[in-house]
C-alpha cells in the first residue's frame, strides 16, 4: 500500500467515519428509545416513516433543520451560539479514542480501528466529557432566562458530584490493567481471562450509575426535567441548535456505553475469548460483538428511563456523597491492597 494512501487518505477516511459512526448510532438510539419506551408503556411508538419507523429521526432532523432559529433579544449571542457547538464537538472528539475493534491486517498494512492512540486515552475522554458540561452551563446562562439558568445550575451541581466517583472507579480499572490506554485495557482483559466487569463489580455499578448521571438521563435528568423546568438548559433553543444539543446528548450516551463496554466488558472481545470450544464465537467480527454490547447498555438506558421516577437534586447529591463516593473509595482501597498482595 502506497504511503500516500496509508498516511493521508486513511486518516481522512477515519475522521469521516468517526463523525458518521456516532451519528448512525444516535439515529438508531433515538429510534430505539422511542420504540422501547413505547413498548414498555403498552404503546407502539413511531412506525410510519420507513421500515418500523426507523427513518423517524431523519424526519425529525429535517423538521428541525427548517425551523426558525430564534435567538432571544437579551441573550448573550456569542455564548448562546457557542454552547451547542461545544457540547457537540467535545462529545464527537471523545469518540476518537474509542477502539472499535481489533486492528485489521491488509497485506502489510495494519488498519487500526481507532483514530487516535494515546497512552492516556481514558483521561482524555473524561476531560472531554467534562468540557461538554461547559456547553450546558453556557447555554443555560446565555439564554438569559430563568428556567435554563436553573437547569444549568443543577447541571453544575450534578457534574461536580459525579465526576468524582467516575474518576475513582476508572482509577480502579487502571490499577488492575496498569494502563490508561483503552486498547491496552481491552488486551489485558483478554490476557487475564476475565472481563473487568466481573472482577470489579462495584466499580462497574458505580461507573454505570455515574455514567447515567453524567449524560443527564433519567432518573438523573434534573437539568432538563420537563415536568419542572420545562426543558431545562435548552428551553430557549430552537431549530438546529436544539438539534445539536439533542444529538449530542444521545452521542454522549453512546460514548458512555462504549466506555462501559471497553472498560468492563472486554471491548470487541467475544465472551470467553480464551476458551477453546467457544472459539466459534470468534467467527463474528469483533466490531459486531462490540456493537451488541453497546446496544445492550443503550437498551438499559431506555429501560431505566421507562421505569424510575426522577431524583430530586438534594437526594441525588446525597446519593453521591453518602453512597457512591465512599463505596468507590473503599473499592479502590480493596483493589489496591489486593493488587499489591496478589
Amino acid at each position, binding site marked *: 500500500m502506497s504511503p500516500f494512501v496509508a498516511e493521508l487518505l486513511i486518516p481522512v477516511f477515519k475522521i469521516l467515519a468517526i463523525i458518521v459512526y456516532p451519528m448512525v448510532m444516535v439515529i438508531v438510539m433515538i429510534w430505539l428509545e422511542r420504540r422501547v419506551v413505547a413498548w414498555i*408503556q403498552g404503546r407502539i411508538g413511531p412506525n410510519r416513516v420507513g421500515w418500523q419507523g426507523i427513518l423517524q429521526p431523519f424526519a425529525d432532523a429535517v423538521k428541525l433543520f427548517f425551523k426558525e432559529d430564534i435567538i432571544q433579544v437579551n441573550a448573550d449571542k456569542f455564548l448562546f451560539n457557542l454552547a451547542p457547538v461545544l457540547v457537540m464537538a467535545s462529545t464527537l472528539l471523545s469518540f476518537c479514542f474509542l477502539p472499535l475493534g481489533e486492528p485489521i491486517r491488509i497485506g502489510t498494512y495494519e488498519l487500526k480501528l481507532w483514530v487516535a492512540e494515546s497512552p492516556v486515552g481514558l483521561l482524555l475522554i473524561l476531560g472531554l466529557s467534562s468540557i461538554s458540561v461547559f456547553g450546558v452551563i453556557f447555554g443555560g446562562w446565555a439564554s438569559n432566562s430563568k428556567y435554563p439558568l436553573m437547569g444549568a445550575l443543577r447541571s453544575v451541581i450534578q457534574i461536580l458530584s459525579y465526576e468524582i466517583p467516575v474518576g475513582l472507579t476508572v482509577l480502579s480499572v487502571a490499577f488492575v490493567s496498569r494502563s490508561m490506554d483503552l486498547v491496552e485495557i481491552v488486551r489485558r482483559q483478554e490476557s487475564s481471562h476475565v472481563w473487568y466487569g466481573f472482577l470489579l463489580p462495584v466499580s462497574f455499578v458505580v461507573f454505570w450509575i455515574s455514567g447515567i448521571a453524567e449524560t443527564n438521563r433519567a432518573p438523573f435528568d434534573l437539568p432538563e426535567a420537563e415536568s419542572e423546568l420545562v426543558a431545562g438548559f435548552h428551553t430557549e433553543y430552537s431549530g438546529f441548535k436544539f438539534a445539536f444539543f439533542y444529538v449530542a446528548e444521545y452521542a454522549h450516551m453512546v460514548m458512555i456505553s462504549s466506555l462501559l463496554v471497553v472498560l468492563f466488558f472486554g471491548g470487541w472481545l467475544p465472551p470467553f475469548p480464551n476458551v477453546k470450544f467457544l472459539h466459534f464465537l470468534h467467527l463474528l467480527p469483533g466490531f459486531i460483538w462490540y456493537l451488541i454490547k453497546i446496544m445492550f447498555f443503550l437498551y438499559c438506558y431506555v429501560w431505566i428511563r421507562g421505569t424510575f421516577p426522577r431524583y430530586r437534586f438534594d437526594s441525588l447529591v446525597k446519593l453521591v456523597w453518602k453512597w457512591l463516593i465512599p463505596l468507590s473509595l473503599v473499592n479502590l482501597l480493596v483493589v489496591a491492597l489486593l493488587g499489591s498482595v496478589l
Partner: protein
Amino acid sequence: MKAIVRFLKKFFLVDLLVGLSVTLRHYFSRKVTIQYPEQVKTPGTRFRGLLRLYRDEQGEPLCIACKACQRICPTGCFDIEGVKAEGAKILRPVKFDWTLDRCTFCGLCVEVCPTAAIRFSKEFRMTSVEKAGLRFDMPGMYEEGAELQKHLCGGCLP
C-alpha cells in the same frame, strides 16, 4: 435480623429490580394502541355520534316539527320551523338547521323526541375544513356515510 435484611435489600437494589421486572414484562405484553386510520375502534352501543334525522319504513320523515329538541337544547343549536300542509294532519319541518359546533352531545334532544326522529349515529369523524361543513340544514341531516363525510370535509378524505 430484619434490619440486616432491609439493608441487604437496599444495597442490592431489590426495589429497583422489582420495578424493572414490571416494565420488562410490559415490554413483551400486548400493545393497546389502535392504529387509527387502518384500525377503527367500534363505538359503544349507545355511542353519541353525529345527530341524524331518520325516516320511517315508508320513507316518510319521522320529524313532526314539535320543537321539543329545540326547547331542551342547553346550547340552542337547533333552528326548526314546521308547516302544516293543506289537508295534512301533522306538522312537517320545512327548516331543520343544526349547528354542530355548538352541540355538546348531551343527548337531551334524543331523549325528548316523541317520534324518535332525531337519533345519534355512530359517526365520530366530525372534522371540517370550513365552517360551512359544521352547519347542517334539513337535507344535510339525512345524509349518511360517504355523503356525510363529503358534507363535512368537502371531500378531502379519499
